[in-house]
């Protein structure tokens, strides 16, 4: 290839060779992804420092950090987080287990879907917000209320995901199981279950998200402790820093749980030989 052509190629707008591209500075994913929140944080601090927004409306990040430390130091935050975490885990464990079983029932049996499907959809349609006023009369305001609401919140997405996962098992795999002459039990454990795993996990992640929403809803509307209550208390005391601490704790735990579930899923699927 002649020099003239090389130059011609470059001049006519061909992108630079990979070598040049590699030498040129390109912001990495991580840098960009952390730049955005840092910039937002900076903006927030600047707005507060310059007094553009009243501190009772938007306290400075430093103030929020200080409140966080104070609440953490006197144990209030930990106590709230502990009770919320307890409710969440019980609700998730119960709701996911029941939802999984119910989803299998709906997926496996047309008749179950026909008979139970409509009432299931009706129950699913009423959000936590609607259940609270009615349930509170039946079971009072104690832990039972929160557990029921959280269980229901997890139950619904888990049941739907499990049912869909059951139905999405490739027909080819089911046929394979039959032609191999596997027992029903073996077909379920060796074929159906593994192929349902990804969808069931996404249902589980959805359930955990729903659990958080319901947890905060019922702690804000009908509770005397927990992170949601902490935020309402912050509102009552007109201390936005406390509210924001609550939001951060809720958001961070939501992300953490989601990541944990993703990781578990990846582990399980990797062990099953999948490339994830």
């Amino acid at each position, binding site marked *: 290839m002649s020099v003239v052509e090389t130059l011609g190629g470059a001049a006519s707008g061909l992108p630079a060779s990979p070598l040049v591209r590699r030498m040129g500075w390109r912001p990495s994913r991580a840098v960009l992804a952390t730049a955005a929140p840092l910039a937002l944080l900076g903006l927030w601090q600047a707005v507060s420092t310059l007094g553009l927004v009243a501190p*009772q*409306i938007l306290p400075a990040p430093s103030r929020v950090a200080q409140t966080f430390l104070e609440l953490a130091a006197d144990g209030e935050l930990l106590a709230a987080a502990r009770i919320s975490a307890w409710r969440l885990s019980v609700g998730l464990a119960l709701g996911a287990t029941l939802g999984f079983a119910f989803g299998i029932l709906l997926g496996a049996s047309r008749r179950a879907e026909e008979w139970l499907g409509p009432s299931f959809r009706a129950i699913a349609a009423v959000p936590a917000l609607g259940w609270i006023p009615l349930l*509170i009369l039946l*079971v*009072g*305001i104690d832990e039972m209320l929160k557990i029921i609401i959280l269980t229901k919140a997890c139950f619904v997405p888990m049941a739907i995901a499990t049912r869909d996962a059951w139905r999405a098992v490739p027909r080819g795999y089911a046929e394979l199981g039959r032609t191999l002459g596997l027992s029903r039990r073996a077909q379920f454990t060796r074929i159906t279950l593994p192929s349902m795993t990804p969808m069931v996990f996404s249902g589980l992640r959805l359930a955990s998200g729903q659990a958080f929403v319901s947890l905060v809803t019922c702690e804000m509307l*009908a509770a005397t402790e927990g992170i949601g209550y902490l935020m309402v208390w912050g509102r*009552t*005391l*007109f201390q936005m820093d406390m509210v924001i601490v609550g939001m951060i704790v809720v958001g961070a735990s939501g992300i953490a749980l989601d990541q944990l579930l993703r990781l578990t899923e990846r582990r399980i699927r990797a062990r099953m030989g999948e490339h994830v």
Partner: protein
Amino acid sequence: AEDYPRTIRLGDVGFGFGTPYGVSLQAVADAKGFIAEEFAGTGVQLEWTYFTGTGPAINEAFANKQLDFASYGAVPNIVGKAAGLDTVILASTQGTNIFAVARPDAGIRTLADLKGKKVALQKATIIHWAALEALKKAGVEPGDFTLVDLKNADQLAAITAGSVDAVFGADFLLPLEEKGVAKVIFSSARDDADASGFGGFLVSRDFRDAYPEATQKVVDGYVHAAEWIADPANRDEVFQIWSRAGTPVPLIARSNADTDFKQAFNPRLDGEFQKRYRSALDFSVAQKLVRRAPDLTEWADPSFLDNALKQKGRDALWPERRGNAS
């Protein structure tokens, strides 16, 4: 035209299924047009908002510059002031009658019987404050009972479901007695006026500084309303006005049976006011509702009220109370 704003925004506590209506002095001033007539011919519009979210909601509205005047309980306005809201107290108001009800089968007849029981109330409100005062007088210390923080609706459900033994609250508790779910064991108007709700009529400092004349007119109208409501002949009409919020007249009548409106809506910023607000400040600090107590002398501005009282011999209607500090 520069002397008056185009609109003046007033806020008070309210209830109702549709648009909420007020259940206190401002509702009367609103319905009877006492403040509006002060502004006759000026073109000033009055805008009333009745907050169902009560104290915190009014604080938020002040913070967002959506309100110029508001009446609300001492505890939330102390919380707001301490958090940096620049308000000024123009007048005081007693208003709210506080009740305690107990489950009939719990063997509770007086406040003293609440020792060792589960008591529900909404924390960080004047009810919380008044309840602790009343209980202290009855010899029940905070350590003697279990306090459960519940909002109004949940209190009703909780005592009905038997989750708590007694509830402190306002007149929304009275239907429970009718339904046989609970019986009234305490009424502040009947048993201990010092444990009634107490609060203030506040203006934002910005408004007062910008429109002193308008502020004066609002206070004049407000005092006029207090004067009108103090006349026992008007009681029935007051109940009618308040019933727009959804509570039937008989219930309002019953809840106010022991209330002397002249005293309840006494606007004076006198010794009694000082005493009650100091108590509320102490309470707020003790309960860690505020990080630092606001300075009362700087906060209250009696000048507008004094002008209003000088007119038409109102001075005599509400003599200064000494307020023997306890």
